[in-house]
């Protein structure tokens, strides 16, 4: 076992790179364009195994990922986020829709046509234990992409693999070891090295840290950060953990039952979530601060996520939403841009800006026929400010709020203003030695 001693903390790649601030550069052109993406799985039952129903795992997604940015995909289990990731990787055939990667529609390519393109998009899996072949050495595992793509790197495969191992904070001497000789965090590093072997443009990471211990999670998150700034990678990070997604992503899409309910820039989403589901999700995250235990307002959603086999009609969240009105059961709210770069699919969004800039106000969306609502029009359509929030009048009682959330976001605290100077310290995370 190689514990402790060598297992690098953070990698030194950041040292070469530009200062942190500059690394968050403006996102470039659209690298991945997903339109109308659907995945339906048939359910068979009965005597003849006839198609008895359909699991609409992913039901109509539109989103873009720009070059160099990180898009986070969050949601609870069964929302279709992993299915989406696998479709983007084309490990799973979409039922409908297009996935353009650098301008080419991947869904139309045959397996043979796809193969040469595969080097440009790679995946990191959740469980480093089961995604590495236990019978192969680390050298074989990390070198496999070269062999598959018949690429001979300069200086040979072995040298390239050793460089990759160093890059992810492992030792080049680990070349001949087997996965079981490593700890969970180190195994995840091996998986990352394999994904980066061919210098891909896009990396899809499905729950990259959720199987790891807290202290190791942070190491891997930092590593992914460093690699992105070093190689200008584009990430699609899929996770159930809202705080991990907040840390790693530039833009965040929230999914519920196969649909995106809200998508926005990170700060925007976390400081003023607009979809009630996002609000509830964020309020449910336990806060590591016992002092705030009593004062915190939480929205407790009742019950479970409905079955994706038989999702509620119209707005899929209406069965658990405390703001649901009749319209939510009959008309599906379109994903519309309510504020700049902030798209929400809700008839009664939260945290909407008002003309006088008052704190809490809930806007009543005037129902418009779905086809008439163009993106961006939604914001204008909601002119009328209602004095009495419709919250407590939830008719069917399917969902009830335990506490009404207040607008002050859980995200921004005065700490935001505190100096971040120590963060500029060199890439190594050895906690800074204070001047003696």
């Amino acid at each position, binding site marked *: 076992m190689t*514990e*402790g001693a060598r297992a690098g903390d953070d990698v030194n790649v950041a040292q070469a790179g530009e200062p942190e601030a500059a690394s968050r550069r403006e996102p470039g052109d659209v690298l991945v364009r997903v339109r109308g993406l659907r995945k339906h799985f048939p359910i068979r039952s009965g005597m003849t195994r006839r198609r008895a129903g359909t699991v609409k795992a992913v039901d109509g997604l539109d989103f873009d990922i720009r070059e160099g940015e990180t898009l986070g995909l969050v949601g609870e289990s069964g929302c279709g986020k992993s299915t989406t990731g696998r479709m983007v990787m084309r490990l799973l055939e979409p039922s409908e829709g297009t996935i353009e990667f650098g301008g080419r529609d991947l869904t139309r390519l045959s397996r043979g046509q796809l193969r040469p393109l595969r080097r440009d998009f790679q995946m990191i899996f959740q469980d480093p234990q089961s995604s590495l072949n236990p019978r192969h050495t680390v050298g074989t595992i990390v070198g496999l992409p070269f062999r598959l793509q018949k690429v001979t790197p300069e200086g040979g495969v072995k040298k390239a693999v050793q460089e990759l191992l160093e890059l992810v904070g492992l030792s080049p001497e680990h070349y001949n070891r087997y996965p079981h000789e490593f700890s969970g965090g180190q195994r995840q590093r091996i998986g990352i090295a394999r994904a980066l072997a061919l210098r891909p443009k896009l990396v899809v990471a499905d729950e990259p840290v959720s199987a790891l211990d807290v202290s190791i999670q942070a190491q891997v998150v930092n590593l992914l950060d460093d690699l992105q700034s070093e190689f200008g990678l584009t990430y699609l990070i899929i996770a159930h953990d*809202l705080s991990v997604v907040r840390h790693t992503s530039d833009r965040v899409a929230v999914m519920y039952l196969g649909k995106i309910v809200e998508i926005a820039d990170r700060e925007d989403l976390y400081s003023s979530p607009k979809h009630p589901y996002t609000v509830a999700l964020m309020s449910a995250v336990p806060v590591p601060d016992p002092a705030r235990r009593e004062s915190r307002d939480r929205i407790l959603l009742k019950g479970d996520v409905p079955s994706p086999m038989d999702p509620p009609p119209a707005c899929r969240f209406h069965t658990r939403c405390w703001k649901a009105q009749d319209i939510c059961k009959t008309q599906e709210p379109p994903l519309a841009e309510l504020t700049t770069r902030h798209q929400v699919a809700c008839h009664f969004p939260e945290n909407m800006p008002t003309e006088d800039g008052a704190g809490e106000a809930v806007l009543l969306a005037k129902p418009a026929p779905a086809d008439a609502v163009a993106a961006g029009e939604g914001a204008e359509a909601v002119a009328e400010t209602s004095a009495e929030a419709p919250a407590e009048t939830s008719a069917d009682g399917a969902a009830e709020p335990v506490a009404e959330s207040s607008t002050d976001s859980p995200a921004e605290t005065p700490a935001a203003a505190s100096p971040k100077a120590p963060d500029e310290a060199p890439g190594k995370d050895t906690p800074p030695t204070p001047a003696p």
Partner: protein
Amino acid sequence: MPRLLPRRKRDTAAELPKLAPAGPPPEPENFLEVRDLTVHFPTDDGLVRSVDGVNFALQRGRTLGIVGESGSGKSVTSLAVMGLHGGTSARIGGEIWLDGKELVRSTAEEVRLMRGRRMAMIFQDPMSSMHPFYTVGHQIIEAYQVHNEVSAKQARAHAIDLLGRVGIPRPDRRVDDYPHQFSGGMRQRAMIAMALSCDPELLIADEPTTALDVTVQAQILDLIRDLQAEFNSAVVMITHDLGVVAELADDVLVMYAGRAVEHGPARTLFEQPRHPYTWGLLGSLTRLDRARQERLMPIKGSPPSLISLPSGCAFRTRCPYADRNDGREKTEVPQLLEIEPGHRTACHLDPGERERIWTEDIRPRL
């Protein structure tokens, strides 16, 4: 340290002389008191010291959070309290006092009679923790009937009542469902119903929400809190999630490599932590209640092997301040000492120095 006890299924009082006599019983208000608990597993590669001298006390109505990473010994500790190491090669030493009765020196049968009745446990994965072949109701009834002489009809009514109390809709119908017909959150509710079937005074929850979604996690934590208030039971919450601990615990015990490194009231531990490992855990967190940090501050390296722990302080290989102790960190195991009333840490560094590091270096960067 007391001699180690090989526990076998049929051990009787006569077979227990190797264990040193227990100390005096604890103060009556300490419903659970664990003294110098050790759990060792002999293996072909050497002795695995999963738990190596852990002490804590817990009163009725209070919640103790035990935090640590995998291999820290937090689950092994709770299984020892429940007497669930029987039949394994575990050697258990020390004392476990439950309501004035010492358990390590009790027979397996005596401990079994307390299990489920006076102390109960909820496990991490409700899917694999329920028997797939029996209905949920059957499994609750079984738990109730072991300890209570009741008719099948009464037991069933009790099971339905319990399912209703933990928030299962239509419990009279769902009682006959099999675990695979329940959702993850409902299964965990059913597990809780099972654990509560005999009104236990001690409830141990081992990562009860780790396998669940956040919205369901919030429901389950609420449920545990409400039930605790209702029954005034003592709760031990074992988790790796500092957020969960902050939500529920009154006191927190941080474990590392089989030992307690910090122990104190929850607020103290989160606001004035005094152990470098606790700082590392806090620095590793991504959290929603603070501004987003540009970089996380992880602990370097990975947890050590329990077979060949570093000499002296087990954390020294990962501790950024280890070299400030004139070599003591390599020769001496730091003892868990009180640095202020109710707040104990196991660290060689001078407490004043630690306070300075925390306030000047660590806290501003969290």
